[in-house]
């Protein structure tokens, strides 16, 4: 019989308690148990970065982590970024304005990686952004627009001062 454990997690501020198989990945837990399908699975071996979520504020590959390892943690996913149902946050707006997504599959991972990065780095350079993104693969855009969007978002966050809190959960 599969080994099962009870876990409780906070996802985008909401608490969930579930019994899960110990072998269930965090990505599958989010996607199929909680039906938060915004987190995408692109390679299942930790290279493409599509499944990136923030665990207690730090980026992790949810395909390489088990759900049971997230027990007691606070998780942020792409579904938690928008400030309100009909609004986008500054980073999301910058992605839209710069055409930083085409098929949109890698986008959640890009957004979560950049959320972590921009919280820590208010004055990024192009090179810095490219380095920060080098663990996330995009096959559509050639990255140029994503880099531009990240720099735009950083500038907008600086300009709006307090709006930085938007990314700082």
């Amino acid at each position: 019989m599969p080994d099962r454990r009870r876990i409780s997690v906070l996802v985008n501020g909401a608490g969930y308690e579930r019994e899960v198989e110990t072998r269930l990945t965090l990505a599958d837990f989010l996607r199929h148990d909680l039906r938060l399908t915004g987190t995408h699975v692109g390679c299942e071996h930790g290279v493409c970065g599509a499944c990136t979520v923030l665990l207690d504020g730090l980026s992790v590959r949810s395909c390489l982590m088990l759900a049971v390892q997230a027990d007691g943690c606070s998780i942020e996913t792409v579904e938690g970024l928008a400030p309100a149902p009909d609004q986008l946050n500054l980073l999301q707006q910058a992605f839209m304005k710069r055409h930083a997504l085409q098929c949109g599959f890698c986008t959640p991972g890009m957004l979560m990686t950049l959320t972590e990065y921009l919280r820590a780095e208010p004055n990024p350079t192009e090179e810095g952004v490219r380095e920060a993104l080098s663990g996330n693969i995009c096959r559509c855009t050639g990255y140029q627009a994503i880099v531009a969007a990240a720099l735009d978002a950083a500038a907008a966050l600086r300009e709006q001062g307090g709006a930085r809190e938007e990314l700082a959960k």
Partner: protein
Amino acid sequence: MNAWFGASVQRKEDPALLCGKGRYADDIHLPGMLQAAFVRSPFPHARIRNIDVSAAKALAGVHAVLTYRDLPERLQEPIEMLQPNPSILQVFMPHVLPKDEVCYAGEALAIVVAENRYIAEDAAALVEVDYEPLPSVSDCLKGLEPGAPLAQARANSNILAKMSLQSGDIERAFRNAPHVYRERLHLHRGGAFFMECRGLVADWNPVSALLTVHVGTQSPHRLHRVLIDLLQCHDSQVRVVTPDIGGGFGPRGQVYHEYLAVCAASILLERPVKWIEDRRENFLATNQERDQYWDMEIAVDEEARILGLRGRLVHDTGAYLPKGVVLPWIAGATVPGPYVLPAYKLDIVVAMTNKISVSPVRGAGRPQGVVVMERMMDLVAAKRGLDRAEVRRRNLIRPEQMPYAVGITFRDGRPVVYDSGDYPACQARALQAADYAGFAERRERARRDGRYIGIGISNSVEATGLGPYEGATVRVNTNGKIAVYVGASSQGQSHKTTFAQIAADHFGVDYRDVVVIGGDTATISQGHGTFGARMAVTAGSSVHVAAAQVASQIKSIAAEMLEVPETELELRNGRVQVKQVPGTSGVPRNIEGVGLSLREVAVRSIGMSGFAMRPGSKPGLESTAYFTPDKSTYANGTHVVEVEVDVETGQVRILRFVVVHDCGRLINPMIVHGQIVGGVAHAVGNALLERMVYDADGQPLSTNFGEYMLPLASDVPHVNVSHLETPSPLNPLGVKGVGEGGTITGIAAIISAVEDALSPFGIRIRETPISPQRIVELIKEARQSAHKSV
């Protein structure tokens, strides 16, 4: 009229995708849904002696394990090959599940259906297959040698097709040529590697006798066609509908045998069945492209003008022939490019190997054709001691020669005739943007610092907007909402935005008020798919034609309702209203702006139950158009690339990347820009990184993103893109395709730049991709041979 066409408006697709509210195949959860996993061959070639599924079936949570024998008779036939051609000598196509032979490592031979994927994969590991390994073919040239093993046990040879492309008097061209240069090139295979692996949910509903297939495919109608054949049912009993799709790039348009097996499982079990490919399977079993060997010779006169080009192409099709001879044909027809080529002859051999089948990957044969021609141009320049841009300039077709007949037939069955474009202007502009003239000085400076930099150029002409058609239905619903239905799906190309832009101008509405629905066989009866940079040309033109017809219908009905001549009406702000036209006396008539909502006109258009229609009117504000382009429209581009090569490590860094591209009129410049830059990234991968490695038996060795490298943000340079806009005369919008141009043109320019950086070593690059290891090897070889010759 053109409020939206040509504007860089933001995408309608984005808000949902940015909030994690996209719906891709694996995001679909249906009640009672089961999950599938496949048992795959570990051998490149083997006979299946027996499959024992008893242990797998016994596992708790397993609902079925199906092999060839469990399929209904009709599903035991090989899948039909949809692209016949007289040059094909033998056809091999996969079965839904193989009968007794597997022909590449990773070929699926049994499907396990279980409560969830974890159990399905456990059970797949319990299926015991008794294989008899057979000799196999890995390299297509080796497969042509006498005594080589056969890639298919039933084949009479590994040659599946032979054909030739020919124009001009090739014998004469070479007989009289003062200079002839030869080259052998090997272009290696890679893959699409869209970020979302393949997947589908097949949902057979026994009550309504309807099979709904939610599948991320580029060609829903193609799959629909195959399914109604296999199931022998009415067209309305199969609905193929596409959810959001995480990239396509070609391979996602094919009808894979796994899809059919999943559909069969759903029908047999009367339950929805989902299959989501994992990345390892994606490396093993999703079609790839580009393996080709070219032996070419070029004849030039004293001024380096081309007299003739001839040679042989051996095209590796892998284990099956899903696309017939389409790919080598496109490759061969792309070779002449923007150059005057008085005589050309290419002999093509399509060879079978024990590797996953080949079908188009972004560019579809065109990148190879361009690499070949551009390598030959560089060779001529080197041999004649001329500047590479100058050799090209001398050979370019001039704008006054348009339309220009190349003299060969394209795979669309039509002669290759370039419709429009200014190739010399395109090259000149790219050279200027890249400061080509200043490169010699930059190189000298770099050399003083011990750095090796190089510059490369490539030109291409690309057949786009391939036929036969892609249709559109435009409808104003009785609630006033405007809907556009197109046959093919979008995998990131932004159809929901661009087609809305085209339609919105006809109705005088905001493009956000036009709903675009693509890739659902229930909404439009015919379709071919998103491929060959064709949707803007074909579907875009159909949207334009259909929307114009509906707009005219609106005016006609409104004219009757308002008792005003049609010519005095306009569509504006979601209404049809009287225009600002001065009356006969020259003064306004005080009826300007009087009008009707689209809802009012739509309601009138359908008639009223029990009453006769207005004579001559047709019911509903709706029109379906199938724009059928007579032939391809040809886009073109020039890329100039500057690189630095670290001669110790072989590392290539791209310093500058300039693209000048002509895809006719731009529907949405922002989206066009994105398509080109994305294509360039793919070119960077193909030129420098992406190598699908197989061992001598055809066993794949690079099956994850650690072993097969895709370009990262740190590998792809900033791309400087500018446009020439030569409208195509072949469609009402004046557009040409753009989705593949970045890839098609870019590879050759990068390779050329790397070779140029290594010119102090006298190295010729005859292969793609060119990895750091290979560069170091080539430098070492060059140094050794220099040492020997001293």
